[in-house]
């Protein structure tokens, strides 16, 4: 009985190792590519939709106020990513 259990444990360990290798080769690079693409689209969205927070007049501003909650949680990371140490004047006060 013990020998069989030991064999099963060894097989499980090897499966986990195989899965980790598979993930390292196939999934991890894909992960960062997806993440980069996500950030790119997200940043374009922020710039397009919320230019008023950068001081650029935006006639659409009043019709997109419902998006502000989505915006604020990402705003800090976004302005840092854009190279602005502090949030632009007139925008959310995140830091």
């Amino acid at each position, binding site marked *: 009985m013990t020998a069989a259990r030991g064999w099963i444990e060894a097989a499980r360990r090897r499966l986990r190792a195989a899965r980790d290798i598979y993930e390292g080769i196939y*999934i991890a690079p*894909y*992960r960062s590519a*997806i*993440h980069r*693409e*996500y950030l790119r*689209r*997200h940043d*374009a*969205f922020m710039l*397009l*939709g919320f230019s*008023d*927070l950068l001081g650029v007049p935006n*006639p*659409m*501003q*009043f*019709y*997109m*106020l*419902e*998006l*502000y*909650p*989505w915006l*604020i*949680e990402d705003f800090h990371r976004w302005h840092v990513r854009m190279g602005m140490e502090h949030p632009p004047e*007139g*925008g*959310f*006060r*995140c830091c």
Partner: protein
Amino acid sequence: MTFPRRPILFFGGKGGVGKTTLATAAALEAAAAHARTLLVSTDPAHSTSDILQVGLGPAPRPIIADLWAMEIDPEKEADEYIAGVKARIATAAPPRLLEEVERQIDIARVSPGAVEAAIFDRFTRILENEGGLFERIVFDTAPTGQTLRLLSLPELMTTWMSGLIGRRKKVGAMARMWRNVAGSEAGIETAEDPILAALEERRARFHRARAVLTDPERTAFVFVVTPERLPVWETEKAVEALSRHGVPVGAIIVNQVLPDPEPGVTEAAFVSGRRARQAECLARISEGLGDWPVLRVRLQDTDPVGVDALQRIRPEVME
């Protein structure tokens, strides 16, 4: 010549050119032709109530046969629009962040264009709701400027919002993919459905409104202008901007045109009549604005042009 006969009429022009009076006249004409007519007034000075001598409110109220009228209070409309936004986002962020979001929304509320944006949003809802109940709707819109920009924006609005909603959906799709691959430690939120629903509803409503507003069979925009340099110049710009965006201009109404002299009739009686009307307004100025220095400048027979002419009109205090 009669007012253009379309199911929907908008009256545009600077403040004081007589939009409210003429819009009311157009509504009366439509009702006289037995078309079930709604007059929508946005005048914060309640001129329509004064003209019709009837208290008006935010719901259509019968005036005479086939004529109903309603009055939108622009500031209240903006307050309600903002309240609606806040209600929809109440659960979309934790309390600390929500406070900052609401602060930003309050700043937007007092920005230029907020009131006009709220009124336009209301107009699109009137077109859908009351539009089904009335054969003719006459709007006395706000003065030229922001309102005209919004009316000429439906095309841009539709394109922009479609782009934004599309991108947000893509961001949502990417976020889901990211979450599936990375597991639960990824910090990317997916879209809140009620917010997306509100944006989609607004976009669709603006899209439908745009179809109506650019259909020359259904809509005409009537510009009211007075025969003076600046109103004429502004109206030329406004007409050009609207035409460029496909909004049908139905007529230009030149208001307050001095009548031609009639042979055998002195013009003194006409001038006396105008002076009497003017006296009422001058009295109102003394009453309402008398706390501040009030100076009067005589009406000239020509527009002062050149330094000499301008020297002549240096304000004189009239006793």
